[in-house]
Structures are given as structure tokens and as C-alpha cells.
């Protein structure tokens, strides 16, 4: 054991850190973040592993949740309320929208609670704080991938063949993730100081679900107002998903542009706010 250690024991890294009181400087410490990538990986792995270990159904939950929601929506909105679905079979119509939504809702919730939930780490170990809200985003992607297989099966069942537009899907997934990240950065930092945030999140996601064209189509909204629906970035994502996979949908390019712009603004603001607050996390949490 000691022979191995002595090999590296003397190797000093020629790195100098300066520790000073917080100043207005804004650096996101991207190098540090890059160096913490393995840790990020381990935290994602921990979240997934623990979640699946503690549940009987394990990874099946990733499928069950959206499928159950789809069934409920199909029965109440599709069958009973006869909500128009742009000429698509309602189950596929709603499931295509539910996938990015669930990714977003999970990522947002977990990310917002990430700092408070990792109090112990926060006050005892140093590594880039951004790792905390980032980890749930990646963990959400794993669930998303599992559920995506179901979507492909569902599309095959209804005989829907995706067009080349499917190639834009990764970008839409990215937009969903960035939306969750943007809001998650704000909320996680706020949560450290105001625990009210924790109780606001379930309400927020519920409200947001209804404001997003998941159970209904954007085409229900009269034309001049439709682009404004894009103020909700998830509207752009959801309609984008329908367009990319099913070739139809009530979305529009202007809607998507507005969504992207909103996310950009929120994200930059979130990063700045998070950065400004992160130096006090350990004292406040």
C-alpha cells in the first residue's frame, strides 16, 4: 500500500488558490466545473441507484409514471372531453408531450431542492456548487431515455413514421433541460435562504403543467396569441416534440424563438444569481 502512495506522494501540483472575501467579480469557474465532472457523474449515479434500490419496481417507474398519466389524460380529455389533438391519435399526442414535460418537472423539482437536500455536503466539503443543481438534470435524462422507448413502441402501434425532423429532437431535449436548469438555479439558491420555495414547487409545476399545451394543442389558442404561448418555454418544447416526432402540432417557429430567448435570459440571470449567492450557501443552509 505504501509503495503505491509514495509514487504520487511527492508530486505537488503547482496550483495556487487565493481566498478572499466575496467581491463583485463574476467568473463561473468553468475549469473547476470540468474537473468536477467525475463527481457529477457519481452524484447522478448515486441518485439513480438509490432511487431504484429503494423502490420495488425500480426503473419501471420511469415508464409507469408517464404511461399512467397518458391513460388518465386519454380517458378524460381525449375520450370524455373530446379535446382536439391536431388529427393525431390522442394517446400518442399526449404521450409525446408528457415525455419532455416529465423530464422537465423532475429536473426542476430535484434541482430546486438539491442544495437544501445536500446540506451536509454543502457545509463540509468544497467543490463547485453548480454540481448540485446539475446532477438531477442528468439523472432525469436517464428516465427520459427509458420512457422514450415506450413512445417509439406507441408510435409503431399507431403506424406513425417519424420524418427527418426527428434529428432536431436532441436540441429540443436540450431546451427542456436548459429551462429546468434556468429555473432550478434560481429556486435552488432561493431555497437555501427561504424554505418557502420547497412548498411552492409542487404548486408551481402543477400550474405550469396546465399552462403548457400538453393535454391540449396550441391550435386551441387564437392565432395572434399563439406566439405569446412561447413565453412559456415548455410550450415551445412540447409543440416542438410533436412536430419532430409526429410531423404535426400547433407550434410555430416564432413560438420556439420566443421560448429560446426566454430561457437564455432566465439562464444567464440564474447563473449570475447562483454565483452571487453560492459563497454564502455554507453559512446559510
Amino acid at each position: 500500500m505504501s509503495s503505491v502512495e509514495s509514487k504520487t506522494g511527492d508530486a505537488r501540483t503547482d496550483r495556487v488558490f487565493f481566498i478572499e472575501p466575496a467581491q463583485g467579480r463574476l467568473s463561473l469557474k468553468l475549469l473547476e466545473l470540468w474537473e468536477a465532472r467525475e463527481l457529477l457523474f457519481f452524484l447522478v449515479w448515486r441518485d439513480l441507484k438509490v432511487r431504484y434500490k429503494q423502490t420495488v419496481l425500480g426503473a419501471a417507474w420511469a415508464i409507469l409514471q408517464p404511461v399512467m398519466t397518458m391513460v388518465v389524460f386519454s380517458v378524460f380529455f381525449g375520450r370524455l372531453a373530446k379535446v382536439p389533438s391536431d388529427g393525431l391519435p390522442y394517446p400518442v399526442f399526449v404521450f409525446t408531450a408528457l415525455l419532455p414535460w416529465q423530464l422537465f418537472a423532475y429536473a426542476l423539482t430535484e434541482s430546486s431542492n438539491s442544495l437544501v437536500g445536500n446540506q451536509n455536503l454543502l457545509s463540509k466539503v468544497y467543490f463547485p456548487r453548480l454540481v448540485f443543481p446539475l446532477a438531477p438534470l442528468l439523472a432525469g435524462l436517464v428516465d427520459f431515455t427509458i420512457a422514450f422507448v415506450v413512445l417509439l413502441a406507441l408510435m409503431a402501434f399507431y403506424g406513425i413514421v417519424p420524418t427527418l425532423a426527428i434529428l432536431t429532437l436532441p436540441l429540443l431535449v436540450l431546451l427542456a433541460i436548459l429551462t429546468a436548469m434556468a429555473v432550478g438555479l434560481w429556486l435552488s439558491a432561493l431555497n437555501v435562504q427561504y424554505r418557502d420555495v420547497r412548498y411552492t414547487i409542487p404548486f408551481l409545476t402543477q400550474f405550469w403543467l396546465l399552462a403548457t399545451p400538453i393535454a391540449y394543442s396550441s391550435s386551441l389558442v387564437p392565432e395572434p396569441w399563439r406566439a405569446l404561448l412561447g413565453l412559456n418555454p415548455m410550450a415551445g418544447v412540447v409543440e416542438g416534440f410533436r412536430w419532430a416526432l409526429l410531423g404535426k402540432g400547433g407550434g410555430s417557429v416564432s413560438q420556439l424563438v420566443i421560448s429560446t430567448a426566454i430561457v437564455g435570459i432566465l439562464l444567464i440571470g440564474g447563473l449570475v444569481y447562483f454565483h452571487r449567492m453560492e459563497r454564502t450557501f455554507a453559512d446559510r443552509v
Partner: protein
Amino acid sequence: MNDIAIRVKGLGKLYRIGAKAERYQSLRDALVDALKAPFRRKEAVPTLWALKDVSFAVNHGEVLGIIGRNGAGKSTLLKILSRITDPTEGCAEIHGRVGSLLEIGTGFHPELTGRENIFLNGAILGMKKRDIERQFDAIVDFSEIGQFLDTPVKHYSSGMFMRLAFSVAAHLESDILMVDEVLAVGDAKFQKKCMGKMGDVAAKGRTVLFVSHNMAAIQRLCRTGLYLDAGRINYCGSASEAVARYQKAFVSDGAAVPDERSVREGDIRFIRWETIRADPLLPPHSCQSRDQVVFKFTLVSRRRVNEAAVLFAVWSLDGTLLLAAGSRDQGREPFDIQEGTHSVLVRTRLPLKAGLYQLDISLYASGLGQLDRWTAEPRLNVLPRLDTQLAESWHGLLNEEVGIDLVE
């Protein structure tokens, strides 16, 4: 690259104390405060300098012991130096990669197995995956958890958990290691192993900042010591001096030591003393609390004395007689002392709390009265036991085992 590993200049940390800081603020409070703000003069929030004007430097390869009472700012200092929290003023400059160990087992997840936790905890402490893989066997060996490697740690005994946690931490290979009171882990045997490991780390020329309440550990591991008192540096220099000052501060300041009436120039006298140590690592005039100990007093006599008796006493520094025992009332035959040098061996067991004590030895002979009385120099340093938390033994004079059971 110069030889300085850490340079700290005028470091200070201000904490807001009182009701407000104790619980997290709710949004409502913040809103109410914001509304009230224009109508109210600014209230002075009670504050506390947890650290103030702290400046020192540590060379590469130095092992610095940091001591002080609870709340003296030791942990705050380590937190600032490991970048967990920001200083309010001052600055620090750190050359090299820092590994800090403010608590062992941070980030351990009870649902994960020992193997999984080694990787997770290693990554959290800043180890690379390939380093963990390379050291994996060493970590497992050191922790002695053996067959339980693939058992979720929630099923571990607390001893096993701590051993595993310490093992991961002990294999952290940073240039600078900061350790906060983590040696009080496991049973006596494992503690010895931990101390050994820390000694190895220090011997390898790595820079170590070591916070502990365990004066024996500080004295064994560190050459230099930093004594913090209420957020300020009381002393920075040799470890033994720092420990001595710290312990002195605990014992009453008025050193009403037993009066010095000994006849130092007599033709029969005690000249020096030492502990016969079972553990050669212990400092010479010390013993571990509650351990069997033998004090050897050297007596020089220029004449014969018949039927002599020895009286041995232990005093606290504030002049309380803690223990007195005469050879006669302990059932010993009177001694006949020849000319020459003799050793008087005193065997006892001192269940005292850690600190400095005054030994006092005198020689009597029938018909002649007191021949010599010596207030032994240097004083006896009672070291805390490695297997108990020192903080607990500060209460009361004694540090004795107490069995407390609940009987149905």
C-alpha cells in the same frame, strides 16, 4: 515554487448571531422586513467575530496542530481554508491541491454498499476515479471490513462505518491535508492504526493542518502548534508550548502551587523525576489519564538513613491536594537508605482529567522528621485518553469510567 504552502493574512470571519441567523428566514419575514424597512432605523444585528486577525504561514511538509476550546474558531479556519465558506476580511494563499476532512463519512449513503460508497465518498473528497481504483484494495484492507464490502452500509455497525469512512479519507492524496478532529474513531486498536496512518502522512512530507482536542495526538504528530482563543491567535510556535499554554489556560490561572519549603541543599535530596513509559512516543513527563503509570524519582544521599518513609502527593495547579499516600500507610516496610543514588518508584493510576499537575514527594525518617521535600519539576502532564472524547472529561476533576445502565 517557494516553500510556503499556506500563507494567511489578517483572516477574519464575522457571523451574525441571534434569533435571525439561527433559523432560516422565511419569505414572509423577508417581505415584512422589506415593508417595514423605510419606517425603521437600522437595528444593529448582533455579530460575532468567529475569527479575527489571524495570520500565519505553513511551510510545505509542516504538520501544524490547531488547538483551542470549542468555539475558538478552529473549524471556521479550516472551512475558510478549504473554501467552504468565505472570509469576511483578510486573505489566504494556498499552494497546492487541498484535501479537507472536516468530518468523515460525508456523503456516505446508507443504501449503497461499502464498495459503492468508497467510490462515491472518494469522488466527493476530490479523488479521481482511477486513483480510487488504484487505492481500492488498500482502502479495503485498512478498513478491515472484509466480507461486508458488498453489504449496504446501513447494516454496518457504527464502528465499521467509521472505519470505512476513515479509510477512504486516509487515502486522499492531496498536497495539503486539513483534518478536523476525526481520530476519535473506532476502538483503541483502530485508533492506534489511525494515528499511525496520520504519522505516515506527515512523514511523507505532506502539509497537514490538524485540529484536535486530543493533546496527546497533537504532541505526537505535530512539531508546530497554533493555539486559538476566542477567534484570535493566542500562540503560534512549537506544538508542545502551544499545548502547555492551552492546558494552563484551563487550569486556574492563579498558580497557588504547594509552598516550596524543601531543603534543596540538604545532604539527602530528590534531584529529578520521570515517567517510566510503556509507550516511548509519550512525552517524558507525562502519562495517559487512567493508565497504570510508574514515576521514577531519583534520590541522592550522602549519608545513611534508617527507617525512612516516602510521602507522595499530587496537587492541582490551583493548590488542591488530589492524592497523598505514604509508604508506611500503604503497608511498605521502612526503607534503609545507603549512601549513593537511589530510585524511588511510585506506581499508581491517575484518573485525572487532562492537564498539568504538580507532583510532590518527601522523605521522612523516624526521629529525624522531614529530610527532604521536593515540589517536582517539571510538572506532570496528564494526557487525555485516545479512546475518549476529551471534551467530556473537562467537567470535573476526574476522568474515570462510569458505568451507567438501565435496569428493567
